[in-house]
């Protein structure tokens, strides 16, 4: 540990600039401590004091010309590493009709961020886990993170809303910093845990810290930890929250909550985003832009036909059960770092620590299943690959199957996985793989919105963009050797078709396959010709039903669960299901009655997936992200949450 005179603080700026670093640091802007470009020590908020309370933040001048009078303002490293709005790629329609996609990747110059607190370094680690932790890594986030040198400060005077001691993320800086400063009246005790930090330190005129100064830091940190303005008990919280999804408190807090998204915007770990597809008026030039989103917006959980979280109580519960609940299962840590921002910047002053304390009062415990581990993280720039429609098959009035050739070919085309299919200027939609291999993809698409309308209107020769495939495939290896019951509703047959083809091709492993398929009407039956062919296959047994029969229809009428009986569900069978959630719920129940256990029942989930890589947070479902941990799940993985309103 070294000692730096207060008067020499400008030398730190000189040292950082000598390395070519742009310096960001705390400074007073519009009545708050903000993180902004600064030139020297004179821009730092010396002598400023903040008064923070629920929904309340005021700055005033006064006291000593030191830096210990204030804690965090609304900004954090999130702004630096994960900007609120950025272009991900540009797309153009070339003269030959082909699409050209080019990534937009930042080229961040070297930077230094000053005055970062322990809570925010913990938050940066947690955001990194979400954006770079696997199976995909966001290269834009990494580039910005790696370009920054962090000059952290130990908090000696925590604020009224601070509770990092409870979350074990402060007040002492223990991670993520290149330099750590602890302020004393006469100067700063400086530690340099990294090589980059030591290089900066070497440029400064410092002296070794005396033993009593080193001891003083330890004392100051102990004292700070004992002087937190708030506290929270996170122990066992995930199990309590998920065991209390009907707790009366959710409704009580929803009476105050404005669902405005301020809490998530200032939270240094919240990472949810959405995307837009701006274009020129002729549509020939387009881009995809990512911007911060919030689980408090309606659109966050919206899929065609409706939203999963219409009520404010659903949204608050979603946020809290993720932040301090499912987050632990997903990332091994709570998503709360005790910075208090969500309390200060909530317009109506909802206090997370108070809500947690209230929710702890109650009954109910639910264990959360662990999500699958994603060992490696491959770079994912989120840029589609150019592809061409080679064939269009009309399946029904509003459903077509596109055959798509991807110029570069694709790895990992397996039934159950999905691709992001895009049209520049219109949008990207997740579409399951209904057939194909590395050279050719089949996507069966129902026209339910603007993007799917446009996709369904494509003709052979038209260009599209393809990203993927993503997600988890049907576990055919695990299913082999037993009878298999495939239950499909409507368009739900699409993600199952590839699996059915594979099982037909491997009769030794799949000697008895039952397909129970329900469509709205005979005209809505998908893949009619292929189904007729399957009727000739000895290992395949077809059971069809429609909701509304036409006069010529001689088969079953009614819901698909009525097809499930001892004949179609043989003893020892496993099951695969895809359809509307309500249909899947009744199907699972019926299958359980017929002896198919949860762990041998596989379902595929639909949520509002935009990035498909776990970055955008929109398909977060309990401990999972549907895009990367699913969309195929065994039912025992999701039983604890399945059908729960608001998820």
């Amino acid at each position: 540990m070294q000692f730096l005179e207060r008067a020499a603080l400008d030398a730190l700026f000189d040292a950082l600039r000598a390395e070519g670093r742009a310096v960001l640091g705390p400074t007073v802007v519009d009545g708050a401590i903000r993180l902004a470009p600064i030139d020297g020590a004179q821009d730092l908020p010396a002598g400023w004091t903040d008064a923070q309370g629920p929904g309340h933040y005021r700055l005033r001048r006064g006291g000593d010309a030191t830096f210990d009078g204030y804690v965090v303002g609304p900004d954090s490293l999130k702004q630096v590493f994960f900007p609120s709005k950025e272009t991900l790629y540009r797309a153009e329609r070339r003269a030959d009709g082909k699409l050209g996609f080019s990534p937009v990747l930042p080229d961040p110059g070297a930077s230094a961020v000053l005055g970062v607190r322990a809570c925010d370094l913990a938050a940066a680690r947690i955001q990194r886990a979400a954006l770079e932790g696997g199976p995909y890594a966001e290269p834009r986030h990494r580039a910005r993170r790696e370009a920054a040198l962090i000059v952290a400060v130990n908090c000696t005077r925590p604020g009224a809303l601070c509770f990092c001691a409870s979350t074990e993320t402060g007040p002492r800086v223990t991670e993520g910093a290149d330099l750590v400063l602890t302020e004393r009246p006469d100067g700063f005790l400086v530690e340099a845990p990294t090589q980059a930090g030591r290089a900066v330190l070497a440029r400064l005129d410092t002296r070794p810290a005396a033993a009593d100064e080193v001891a003083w830091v330890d004392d100051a940190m102990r004292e700070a930890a004992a002087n937190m303005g708030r506290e929270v008990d996170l122990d066992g919280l995930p199990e309590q929250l998920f065991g209390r999804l009907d707790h009366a408190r959710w409704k009580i807090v929803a009476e105050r909550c404005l669902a405005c998204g301020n809490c998530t915007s200032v939270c240094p770990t919240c990472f949810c985003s959405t995307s837009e597809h701006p274009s020129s008026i002729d549509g020939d030039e387009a881009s995809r832009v990512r911007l911060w989103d919030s689980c408090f917006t309606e659109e966050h959980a919206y899929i065609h036909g409706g939203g999963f979280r219409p009520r404010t109580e659903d949204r608050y519960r979603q946020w809290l059960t993720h932040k301090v609940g499912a987050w632990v299962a997903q990332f091994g840590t709570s998503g709360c770092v005790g910075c208090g921002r969500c309390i200060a910047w909530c317009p109506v002053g909802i206090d997370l620590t108070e809500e947690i304390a209230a929710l702890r009062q109650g009954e109910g415990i639910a264990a959360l299943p662990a999500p699958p581990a994603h060992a490696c993280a491959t770079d994912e720039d989120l840029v589609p690959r150019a592809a061409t429609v080679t064939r269009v098959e009309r399946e029904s009035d509003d459903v077509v199957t596109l055959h798509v050739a991807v110029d570069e070919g694709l790895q990992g085309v397996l039934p159950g996985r999905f691709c992001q299919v895009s049209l520049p200027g219109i949008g990207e939609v997740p579409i399951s793989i209904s057939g194909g291999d590395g050279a050719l993809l089949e996507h069966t698409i129902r026209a339910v919105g603007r993007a799917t309308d446009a996709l369904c209107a494509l003709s052979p020769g038209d260009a599209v963009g393809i990203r993927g495939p993503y997600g988890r495939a049907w576990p055919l290896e695990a299913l082999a050797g037993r009878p298999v019951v495939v239950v499909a509703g409507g368009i739900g047959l699409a993600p199952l078709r590839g699996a059915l083809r594979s099982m037909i091709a491997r009769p030794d492993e799949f000697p008895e396959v039952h397909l129970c398929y329900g469509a709205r009407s005979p005209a809505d039956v998908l893949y009619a010709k292929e189904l007729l062919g399957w009727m000739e296959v000895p290992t395949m047994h077809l059971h069809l039903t429609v909701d509304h029969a036409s006069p010529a229809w001689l088969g079953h009428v009614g819901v698909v669960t009525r097809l499930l009986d001892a004949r179609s569900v043989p003893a020892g069978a496993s099951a695969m299901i895809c359809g509307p959630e309500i249909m899947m719920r009744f199907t699972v129940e019926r299958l359980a009655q017929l002896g198919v256990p949860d762990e041998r029942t596989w379902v595929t989930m639909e949520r509002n997936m935009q990035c498909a890589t776990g970055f955008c947070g929109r398909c977060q479902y309990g401990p999972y992200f549907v895009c990367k941990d699913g969309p195929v799940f065994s039912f025992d993985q999701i039983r604890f949450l399945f059908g729960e309103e608001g998820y």
Partner: protein
Amino acid sequence: MSARPRLGIFKMASCDGCQLQLVGCEDELLAVAGALDIAFFAVATSKKDDGGRYDLALVEGSVSNEEQLAHLLDIRARSDFLVTIGACATSGGIQALRNWRDVDEMIRVVYATPSYIDTLATSTPIADHVPVDFELRGCPIDKGQLVELITAFLVGRRPAIRDESVCMECKRAGATCVLVAKGDPCLGPITHAGCGAICPRFGRGCYGCFGPKERAAASALAAHLASGGVPAEALVRKLRGFTAWAPAFRDASDALDEG
């Protein structure tokens, strides 16, 4: 598209300010004019309504008299995609303040010759009278959103017009919250985004000219502001501005008024 889609821009009771936003789209106006056949736009061209069909109709203003209502029904019948633009068209506008008053009495007090005045007792949004395909909020509407709407219509995408709070835009823009840091009563948390948080970015509270966002908890915000010392009358005035008749603001202000 072989023929260019026909665009008509119509007005009811309004100040023309929203139409002028299109004229003000200097950079994009030529592209818009190239992509669309601007068949009727009284503010900018001398062409008369030829009685034909419109692929896209932009309707400004509220329904304030019988003549406007008849005109609106006619436009709707001749338009494939009808978009209301601005606070008047989407909520009834500032002139909807009369909906709380006795119109006959006001006419007698204000006008020298009350018999010249032919008006309905209320000013109401377009969607109260005909089906509306999309609403563009604001007083006035935002140029960028207007261009996005037209582009999205032409290209065939869902317009990137987000029904979220002004706070989302405010935070993305890196503005300091005027409610929390200055105690300025700001309607941002309950107001539909689209303005780019222009008022908070210039240090003043939002006055709700884009109208309520979905699930606007106007009463909850009002209760909080009241607990901070803002008098009920001031809250009523705050909610009864350019979008006073929008249900979420109307109901909350009525509750305060009665309360």
